[in-house]
């Protein structure tokens, strides 16, 4: 059919600046016929002779539809589109007009995610929203990021927010492809989150995925590929420096061996001879202990010098591809997306692959009955880390001796290469990563289906059934040649193979009755709901050792020994009733109230139920008559809310006094024994947070500047916390509801269109301030040690102080001379060269009472700034985020920077400047290697974790429309472009892990990416 066509042309201008607008999409409605405006804002388009409507759209402006009606020139004026007040915002169990929101809700949309390479959803939230703190605690591919909404309220229960995907609560966001996401909203205040009751205390992250729209099928491709490089490395001694220190250690041993005779300048020959004379035969051990390695004088001719960090870091490729189809008819709409991510880690042998599929389908079955469903299977294949934490290979690489036997190089200590005999026992981390076979397969099936039934005059019933099943299978195989004890070991003898399976199921059923009605200037929305959730986890693990050979990870009881073999299981149920009413008068006076009753199986028989009420109110001041003359202000709204939320994130069965298996053998046979392993607590219940929020939203200068400001307080009571017990009770910890934590904060969000027109510059700025303090603790407010590690604890909970405040001996230097030791306050065993501590209480000695509070791990301020520039088809996005006011205790730093390490392994490079003698006092901060007070966890490893990070720079170009595609964009991006910080204890100042430590977290990557988005 060759319908006759004719041309329409015109020029598009802006309403605010009256300038020509280039790059505007001009589309004939309901077709794929379209074009874009040129640099001068003009366009020409072939349209049918009869009828038709043109749609003009451009980012940042409200689209406009103009019926052609036979006109030949159409020159529309586009209005700036502030976040439309009529735009719909997702809130719990429903949606609400943005303009009517009375709580503190913040969000991002698909655009922010699609325009740059994002490998996990959380990454898209970094620096985007006030009050939402996203921390990359580990750079391991596929690892979860940590999200904190308005600080941390809980001590032992989880501080993670509740994640809700398409209305279904889930445990985490693993396996969700970021480009599936239509928008993400975060419910920050209690009034918004209280509808999620017992799980709302840490905020709620609502993820809504894309659904189809009526129209011809749209095909979308997107993808990116990039190179990742380690962002930072630890400063350790070079081979030459290590040898120098090793020599000094040998000299000290030599002089101590016989103080009267031996001198450090004795030659090797003299030493060997004198060892014999002294009656100590120069065994191999003694030769190494008291004489230099003759190879040192030949350096790299005789030895391999190895930079171990360089050896395990690599340039790593990351790529992701997505293909999606969406569209629909009058009755059925669909959106189907598939993606594949392949991310090699920047450390050898750590990889991740992820494949996802998501199909969202909506069908109008008949009038008043709508069916919706989602099917979202995903799989992840990972190499299970092995880098993070104590015993991880990042730490290993830092402390490996930088000298290897000639020829052994980066495989020193790994079969067939021996360790360097002037060092200790070790195995090359390169060999461990390469030879250990670690595979984790995580399969997740998230599916839901529901019906919307229009009942009667505004009554609608929604029924939803959902399931979220995960099957994780981890397999780690360590062959004999990945063990440091391989020498002389028979094949297979040191091998282990471990196989773990987790199967978790979560079922949800909910029904929500919704009533919406407007009469006159009044409008009302009310819901009444019921939901029940059941979860079950089954875990099993088998590990066998001494496999018959090193050929395969497969094992059988017949040819290997059983190390472990067990299954465990847990169940949980949550039963809820909830109701909410939202009312507005002329969209000017806004009121909302909700209540939820939750019952959980996790709590004691006396207290299974909790009630979570909330009320909020808003006043759209700009809607009042007296404001009509004030043109300066385009919108002004004041909000206030109060609500109670809960936290139930503790392990199952915490309320019971369980019996633990405590067997014993008699007469050579195992006899069953049982002993209680915890206190029974029938009163164990919710942790509750009552929160106030006061907010102000306004836009000025014709929406050029939009501001959102909030002030909040959060009072958390009945803290679920694992009190440390006296061992006299028979236990060391138990969960109780004791204590109180207070949070307060201020949040500010600004969106400013600095320049509009052909060249456009928008700045999005957000800043948050949060402060918390412990208000009440155990029965008598006894301070509670936290952050315990082997060797003690570094922080505590104390009334009046922020959670987990560091409580340390303050290291102020080194005792430089004997006189200082004699005259200054000291610990009992102190010698010259030891670390000097501040005598906090001034009693002239250093005792436990001289520990002092030194900061805490929660940042006071977090900032995010995004600057977006657009000109013609180009866009440039620069995201900077920052934090201030927090500290981090580094255990990885300590492991290479600690007296008592000896000389065998590598040290942080400051040990070149350690205290050696009164004549060679070093840098005044690094003590003698034989310092006596070596095991104290002191302030030497406490660092400020302030940073400013140039998180992302993306430069994109939107190609002019062409016949064979609807939209096309190319971009280059640089993630983690630069970071300013003073953290030298580990790889990243964000590496806050469990207990407030950096245990040697996987370094973050700087990633250079090239990507595209294409719509057909």
């Amino acid at each position, binding site marked *: 059919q060759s319908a006759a066509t004719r041309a329409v042309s015109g020029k598009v201008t802006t309403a605010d600046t009256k300038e020509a607008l280039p790059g505007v999409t001009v589309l004939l409605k309901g077709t794929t016929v379209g074009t874009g405006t040129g640099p001068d804002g003009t366009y020409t388009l072939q349209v049918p002779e009869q009828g038709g409507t043109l749609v003009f759209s451009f980012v940042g402006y409200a689209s406009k539809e103009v019926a052609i009606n036979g006109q030949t020139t159409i020159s529309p004026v586009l209005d700036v589109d502030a976040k439309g007040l009529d735009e719909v915002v997702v809130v719990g169990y429903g949606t609400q007009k943005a303009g009517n929101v009375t709580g503190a809700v913040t969000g991002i949309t698909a655009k922010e995610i699609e325009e740059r390479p994002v490998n996990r959803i959380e990454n898209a939230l970094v620096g985007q929203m006030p009050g939402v703190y996203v921390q990359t605690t580990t750079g391991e591919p596929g690892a979860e990021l940590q999200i904190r909404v308005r600080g941390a309220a809980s001590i032992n229960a989880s501080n993670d927010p509740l994640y809700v995907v398409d209305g279904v609560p889930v445990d985490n966001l693993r396996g969700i492809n970021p480009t599936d996401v239509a928008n993400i909203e975060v419910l920050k205040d209690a009034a918004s989150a209280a509808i999620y009751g017992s799980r709302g205390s840490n905020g709620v992250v609502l993820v809504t995925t894309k659904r189809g729209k009526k129209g011809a099928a749209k095909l979308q491709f997107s993808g990116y590929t990039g190179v990742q490089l380690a962002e930072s490395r630890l400063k350790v001694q070079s081979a030459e420096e290590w040898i120098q220190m090793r020599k000094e250690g040998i000299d000290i041993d030599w002089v101590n061996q016989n103080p009267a005779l031996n001198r450090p300048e004795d030659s090797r020959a003299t030493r060997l001879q004198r060892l014999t004379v002294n009656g100590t035969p120069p065994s191999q051990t003694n030769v190494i202990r008291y004489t230099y390695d003759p190879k040192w004088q030949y350096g790299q001719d005789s030895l391999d010098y190895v930079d171990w960090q360089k050896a395990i870091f690599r340039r790593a490729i990351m790529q992701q591809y997505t293909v999606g189809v969406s569209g629909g008819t009058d009755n059925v709409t669909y959106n189907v997306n598939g993606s594949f991510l392949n991310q090699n880690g920047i450390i050898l042998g750590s990889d991740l692959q992820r494949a996802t599929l998501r199909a969202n389908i909506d069908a109008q079955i008949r009038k008043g009955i709508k069916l919706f469903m989602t099917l979202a299977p995903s799989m992840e294949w990972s190499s299970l880390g092995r880098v993070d934490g104590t015993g991880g290979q990042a730490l290993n690489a830092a402390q490996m001796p930088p000298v290897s036997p000639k020829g052994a190089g980066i495989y020193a200590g790994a079969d067939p290469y021996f360790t360097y005999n002037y060092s200790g026992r070790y195995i090359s981390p390169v060999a461990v990563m390469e030879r250990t076979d670690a595979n984790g397969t995580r399969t997740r099936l998230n599916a839901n289906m529901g019906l919307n039934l229009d009942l009667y005059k505004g009554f609608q019933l929604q029924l939803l059934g959902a399931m979220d099943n995960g099957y994780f299978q981890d397999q780690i195989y360590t062959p004999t040649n990945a063990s440091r004890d391989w020498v002389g070991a028979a094949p297979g003898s040191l091998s282990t193979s471990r196989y773990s399976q987790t199967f978790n199921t979560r079922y949800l059923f909910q029904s929500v009755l919704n009533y919406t009605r407007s009469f006159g200037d009044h409008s009302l929305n009310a819901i009444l709901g019921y939901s029940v959730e059941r979860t079950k986890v089954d875990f099993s693990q088998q590990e066998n050792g001494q496999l018959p050979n090193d050929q395969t990870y497969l094992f059988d009881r017949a040819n290997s020994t059983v190390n472990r073999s067990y299954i465990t299981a847990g169940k949980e149920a949550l039963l809820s009733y909830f109701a909410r009413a939202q009312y507005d008068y002329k969209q000017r006076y806004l009121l909302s109230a909700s209540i939820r009753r939750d019952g959980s199986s996790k709590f004691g028989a006396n207290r299974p139920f909790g009630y979570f009420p909330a009320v909020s109110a808003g006043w759209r001041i700009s809607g009042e008559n007296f404001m009509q003359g004030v043109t300066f202000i385009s919108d002004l709204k004041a909000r206030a809310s109060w609500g109670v939320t809960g936290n139930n994130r503790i392990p199952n069965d915490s309320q019971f006094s369980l019996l633990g298996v405590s067997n014993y053998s008699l007469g050579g046979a195992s006899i*069953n024994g049982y*002993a*209680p392993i915890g206190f029974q607590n029938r009163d164990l219940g919710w942790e509750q947070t009552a929160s106030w929020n006061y907010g102000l939203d306004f836009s000025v200068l014709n929406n050029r500047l939009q501001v959102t400001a909030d002030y909040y307080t959060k009072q958390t009571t009945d803290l679920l916390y694992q009190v440390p017990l*006296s061992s006299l009770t028979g236990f060391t910890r138990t969960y109780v509801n004791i204590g109180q934590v207070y949070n307060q904060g201020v949040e500010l969000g600004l969106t400013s269109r600095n320049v509009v027109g052909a060249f456009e510059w928008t700045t999005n700025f957000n800043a948050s301030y949060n402060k918390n303090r412990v208000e009440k603790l155990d029965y008598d407010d006894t301070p509670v040690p936290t952050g315990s590690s082997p060797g*003690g604890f570094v922080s505590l909970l104390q009334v009046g102080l922020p959670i987990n405040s560091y409580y340390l001996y303050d290291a102020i230097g080194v005792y430089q001379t004997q006189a200082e030791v004699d005259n200054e306050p000291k610990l009992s065993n102190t010698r010259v060269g030891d670390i000097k501590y501040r005598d906090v209480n001034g009693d002239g000695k250093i005792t436990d009472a001289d520990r002092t509070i030194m900061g805490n791990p929660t940042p006071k301020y977090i900032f995010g700034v995004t600057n977006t520039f657009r000109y013609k088809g180009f866009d440039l996005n620069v995201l900077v985020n920052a934090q201030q006011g927090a500290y981090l205790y580094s255990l990885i730093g300590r492991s290479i920077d600690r007296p008592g390490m000896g000389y065998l392994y590598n040290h942080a490079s400051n040990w070149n400047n350690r205290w050696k003698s009164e004549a060679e006092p070093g840098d005044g901060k690094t003590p003698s290697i034989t310092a006596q007070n070596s095991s104290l966890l002191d302030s030497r490893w406490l660092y400020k974790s302030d940073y400013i990070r140039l998180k992302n720079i993306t430069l994109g170009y939107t190609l002019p429309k062409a016949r064979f595609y609807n939209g096309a964009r190319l971009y280059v991006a640089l993630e983690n472009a630069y970071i300013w910080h003073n953290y030298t204890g580990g790889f990243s100042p964000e590496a806050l892990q469990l207990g407030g430590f950096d245990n040697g977290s996987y370094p973050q990557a700087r990633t250079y990416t090239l990507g595209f988005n294409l719509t057909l």
Partner: protein
Amino acid sequence: CKEDILQIQPVANNTVDGFYQNEIQVNQGVMAIYNGTLSLPENSYWFLAEFRSDNVAADIATVQRDYSDVSNFNTTSQTQQLQATWTDLFEIVYRSNVLQERIQPFNFARVPQFKGEARFLRALAYFDLVRFFGAVPIVNKTLTIEESKQVPRAPVADVYKFIVDDLLFAADNLPASYAAADKGRATKWAAKALLGKVYLTMYGYPLRQTSALPLAKQQLMDVYAAASPTTFSVAANFADLFKSANDNKYAVFEIQFQSGGTGLGNPIPWQQGQVFPTNWSPFTGFAADFTLPPALFGANWPKADKRKAATLDSVVRNASGAIVAGRPEFTKFLEKGVAGVQNRTDYPNNFPIIRFEDVVLMYAEVLTEEGNIAQAIPLVNQIRTRSGLTAFTLASPEAASQANFRAAILKERRYEFVAEGQRWHDLVRTGNAISVMTAFKRSTTAAGANFRQLDDHDLIFPIPLLELRINPGFWQQNPGYN
């Protein structure tokens, strides 16, 4: 849907409610107390007692090792090993108290035996507690969280009295022997032997109660008289003592271990080992950074003493796989060529708490303290001749004075019990710890003569910091510690 869906009973384990309902379950509660003793060989006897003594010299380790701090007199209240041992010992006390409370309603025949076992094991735990930490709180019932904060540290003498009471009760109520299926439970003789040792310790440092000496003598004499091939005796061949085939054959009381990968194996052969060739064991030693002192691994301990070969060894392989002499290690509990071991902590050998040789030597010590060297000599000679050494006579220089014979017994005890966690306590109670250990550290550490002079505060450990912080200020730390 009904609200009873919230009533989810734990899938994993039983709960205390509904347990202790019959004799079988009460017996399982007794087993749980014994289970608490499984950690003692490591956490009390090896990592604390043996490393603190002159039987092991720990090098400064590459990473911070608690045993190195123990060995080098560097422990602080934050030394994790102290917390671990403290918690383990009080776990035994707790389980004993649970049993004693839960057994109240019953009157089946084994009730006195079960109570006796519970109190014997509680005494065993307290004996370590008081020797390691000095004044410790006396806990004689299960405590609530609140109560646990208000238990004062009892004076050392009171703790000993508590121990003595438990052991007197146990001695009165425990049977003299058990049927084969129950072999390994504490007997009346175990209680009396331990009581003898407790009295002997009360006679020494720090209480120095002379009145305890005759009490010790009475108990030890009783046990000595009860020796027979079917109860306990001096092993004719020293090495036989530690073979799992001879479990419960020679010793008065042993902690029971068995292989099989069920968590009931003995970890000590691994902990005390360095490198095992595969024909010794499929699993190699832990290879802690320690060396054996010349007094043991050297000419000072003559090879003629058969105990030496049964106690020590040193084997490492060189680059070409050949075995060369090298790192000395304790192989006392390692049966070379052991089979059936499932992992490195799964050795089958029992660990002796009180050997009959201990009873013999303690009896000899009591006699020596009484000035009766002539009677003590044949007792000591039982051990010496069995070990391939010449017997003492009244003409021997060792018998020339009471002091000499004391020293001879101390030395005999060292060789007999090395690696069993006795040496440190022997040095302390005989008042030799400060002088011996100061000299030892000056001869074995890099600090050499600069190693500090030890003093009384080094004879006990600090109270673990986390325990002190449960109720800050309520307990005072031991002197000299932070």
